[in-house]
Each structure stands twice: as structure tokens, then as C-alpha cells.
């Protein structure tokens, strides 16, 4: 007896599941017709109403009733679209869209424009200034300084002519000492020299310098070496070691492999630790 009871319970559950799926499909179908402007008669309303009616006695929870009411709502929208479609067809405005499209494609721009001018009756409208904006304009005008006062304020100051050198500009950090690519290539040569006969060098051994500022700059340049394909990184996660491997020729990495970003922290504490271990 209890086995029979549990069997009927599972059948009911299955029916409910099937019903929900059916309703969801129905909602999606109606939505597609509505949103994409498809022919509303693609939807067989009678069949869909039969589906809604079939599963209605099964619903118990609020969610199930909500789904049911959404399906009915969507069906009503499709029926409205069908009614609009019939109304439009019965009006004098109805013409086969394909026929109109064909004609529009055939006509020249000039002919189309001339034809349109016969049916175009533009609106006549006059722009006017409101008392409020007139008041604002007067306020603005009154707050303006006379031209001679404004000009003296923005006038250029007369100074003695002088000259500057490239070194002055470098010292003022207006221009870099070397072009960036030049600097990068010099850095790459340094890397290959430092690696020597070995194939790789420890990351910190390469970027580490006497000052923290210099170390940061070297880490910054190294990131460009890797990004532009002059070198690559080898990461030993368990040992927590990072090696830099220089290439003999720059590699073009784009589009061949999925590029990934590797964050490497270069903080002051770490730099201090590295420096102490180096001197020890």
C-alpha cells in the first residue's frame, strides 16, 4: 500500500516537472514572437491553451501559480498581436513588406526624396526665450568684466629669451635619457649577460639593487621584458621561487597563446630581507 502511495507521488512530481517545462517553453515561444516581431500566427494558441488547462489542476505552490499566470499573460499578448495583425491587414495601409522593400531598393535616392516631399508636411515651430532665461542672460552679462580688464589678466608676460640643452630636459625629467625600447633592449642584454652559461636567473637576484627605488624600477622593466617576449618566467610554486629565462631572440607571443598576468610583489620588507641575505 505504501509502495503504491509513493509511486503515485513520484508520478505526480514528474507530471509537475513536465508541466513546468512545458509552460516555460510556451513562455519562451511567445516572448520570441513578441520581441523579434515574428508572425504571431506561428503560435498555435488553441494548443497552448490546452497545455495550460491540462496542467492547471496540478499546481499547488505560489511559484507554480505564478508560472501559470505568466504563461496566460504571454498568450494574451500574442492574441493581441494577432488581432493587431488582422486589423492592419484590413486597413488601406497594408502592403506586402517584401513588395515595398523591393520598390525601395529599386528607386534612386533622388526619386525617393522627391516622392517623400509630396507626403511630408513639416511642423512649423518658433523657438522663443523665456523670461527666466532672459534674466539669467542679463545676470551673466552684468557679471562679465570689461574686455580690456579680461585681456590684461590673460596677457602673456614678457621674459628674456634663453636656451636649454637635452641634458637640462633629462634632469628636469621632461624627456627620458633613452627611448623606452632602447632602454628595454639594454636591460635585456644585461639579463643575457647575467645569466651567462646558465639558462636562468633568480628573479630577486636580477631585479635586486642597492636602493629600493632602483629595485622597483628593475622590476618594472622586467615586467616589460616578459610582456614583450624578451624573456619568460619559470615559477616553482612549492619552493616559492621565480626564475627569469631570457630568450636569444624576442618572441611574438600575441595570438599564439593565451596571455596570463602574474602578479609579483616587490615590497620594501622583501627588498630589505633580500639585501640582508646578500650581505650575510
Amino acid at each position, binding site marked *: 500500500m505504501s509502495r503504491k502511495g509513493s509511486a503515485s507521488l513520484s508520478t505526480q512530481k514528474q507530471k509537475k516537472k513536465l508541466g513546468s517545462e512545458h509552460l516555460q517553453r510556451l513562455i519562451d515561444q511567445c516572448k520570441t514572437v513578441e520581441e523579434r516581431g515574428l508572425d504571431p500566427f506561428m503560435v498555435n494558441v488553441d494548443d497552448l491553451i490546452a497545455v495550460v488547462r491540462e496542467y492547471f489542476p496540478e499546481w499547488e505552490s505560489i511559484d507554480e501559480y505564478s508560472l501559470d499566470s505568466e504563461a496566460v499573460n504571454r498568450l494574451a499578448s500574442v492574441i493581441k498581436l494577432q488581432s493587431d495583425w488582422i486589423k492592419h491587414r484590413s486597413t488601406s495601409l497594408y502592403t506586402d513588406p517584401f513588395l515595398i522593400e523591393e520598390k525601395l531598393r529599386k528607386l534612386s535616392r533622388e526619386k525617393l526624396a522627391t*516622392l517623400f516631399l509630396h507626403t511630408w508636411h513639416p511642423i512649423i515651430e518658433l523657438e*522663443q526665450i523665456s523670461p527666466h532665461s532672459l534674466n539669467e542672460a542679463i545676470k551673466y552679462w552684468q557679471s562679465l568684466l570689461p574686455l580690456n580688464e579680461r585681456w590684461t589678466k590673460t596677457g602673456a608676460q614678457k621674459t628674456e629669451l634663453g636656451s636649454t640643452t637635452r641634458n637640462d630636459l633629462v634632469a628636469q625629467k621632461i624627456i627620458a635619457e633613452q627611448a623606452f625600447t632602447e632602454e628595454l633592449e639594454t636591460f635585456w642584454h644585461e639579463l643575457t649577460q647575467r645569466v651567462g652559461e646558465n639558462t636562468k636567473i633568480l628573479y630577486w637576484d636580477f631585479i635586486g639593487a642597492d636602493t629600493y627605488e632602483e629595485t622597483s624600477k628593475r622590476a618594472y622593466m622586467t615586467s616589460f621584458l616578459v610582456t614583450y617576449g624578451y624573456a619568460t618566467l619559470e615559477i616553482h610554486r612549492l619552493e616559492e621561487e621565480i626564475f627569469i629565462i631570457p630568450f636569444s631572440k624576442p618572441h611574438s607571443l600575441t595570438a599564439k597563446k593565451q596571455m596570463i598576468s602574474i602578479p609579483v610583489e616587490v615590497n620594501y620588507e622583501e627588498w630589505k630581507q633580500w639585501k640582508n641575505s646578500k650581505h650575510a
Partner: protein
Amino acid sequence: MEKQQTRMTKKAQYQRKLKRATHLLFYKRHRRPGVKGWELRKRLGSDYPKVLGLLDTYLEKLDLKIKTVFETEKPTEKPTLEQLDRARFFITLRGSLTPKETKMSGWRIDDIAGLAMTIAFTISKKGKASRDEVENLLRDKLPGWRVDINLDRYIRAGYLSQDENQQLYLDWRTRAEIDEKALVDLLLAVEGEKKEKAQ
């Protein structure tokens, strides 16, 4: 004598209302031009349809007319006061522009051709067409880079509106300015002429 005096006062009253209606209709006071029926009723009184009728007769001499755009579809019978209250009234050109005069509107000939295509195509699609379809059609007549710009311009001017699904609809300015039926009829007639010539 009394009757004549009453008639004179009424005439003066209507003349005042005519002037007020002219100011209301010609000057743009909101973002969109035109005046709602209920606004006219408030300013001119409940007999505003009569005032508009008189003004329309006067404007005919100037090749202008008062265009009524109903909220929904144009009623087949005489509109009720309620429908008129909800409608919007504009002053439009009664006749049409010549190609030379079009230059004054600031629209190029291909902008106008594009607008004609867009509106005619949307009418044939029951007033709703997907932007992709319209763009594809416009590419036939306009350079690719101008298609998008032109469509956005038509939307900004109020000829079309667009929803979040990239569907285009005919908007208020199309209903106010364009004789949709005449446009479709003219398009059909052009092909008729061609056929006749071919025969």
C-alpha cells in the same frame, strides 16, 4: 441693437481667442512642439475646437494647417471631446516642399531618401521593424558609416523610437508630419508608371 452689440462682443471674444491660440500653437513651450487638447481647453475655453476650426480656415491662405494627432488611432467618426483633449495639435505645412526649399530644412537629399525608406519600410511592417533590417536596407542607398548616424538622427528628431530589443517604431513626428497612406500609395504608383512605360 442689443443683438448687434452681443454679436460684436462675441466677435471680439473669438478674435482674442484666435490670437491666443496662434501664440500657443506657434511658439514651442515644451521639449516637443504642439499643444495638448486639454491645455487649449484650459486657455481658450470648452469651445476650443471651434476656435481651432476658425484658425485653420485663416491659415489655409498661408498654406498652413492645424494637424491633430490622436493618442491612439485616428477615430473613424467625429472625435469626442475626450479624444480631442488627449490629442496633440500642431501647425504644419498644408502643401509640400519643393526640392529647392528642402535645403532650408538643413537635410541633405540622401538624408531625406533614408528617412523615406525607413518610414515606408516600418509602415509595411505594421509600424515596427528591427534595426538590423532597416540598417541593411539603408546600406543600399547610403554609405555604411552614415547608416547608423542617420538612424540615430531620425530617432533624435522624433520620427522613430527604439526599444531595448533594437526594435524601431514610428514616433510622434512621423504621425504629425507624414501622410503615411499617401507615401505607400505613391510608392505603389511609381512602379505602376514604370510598368506602363515598359508596356
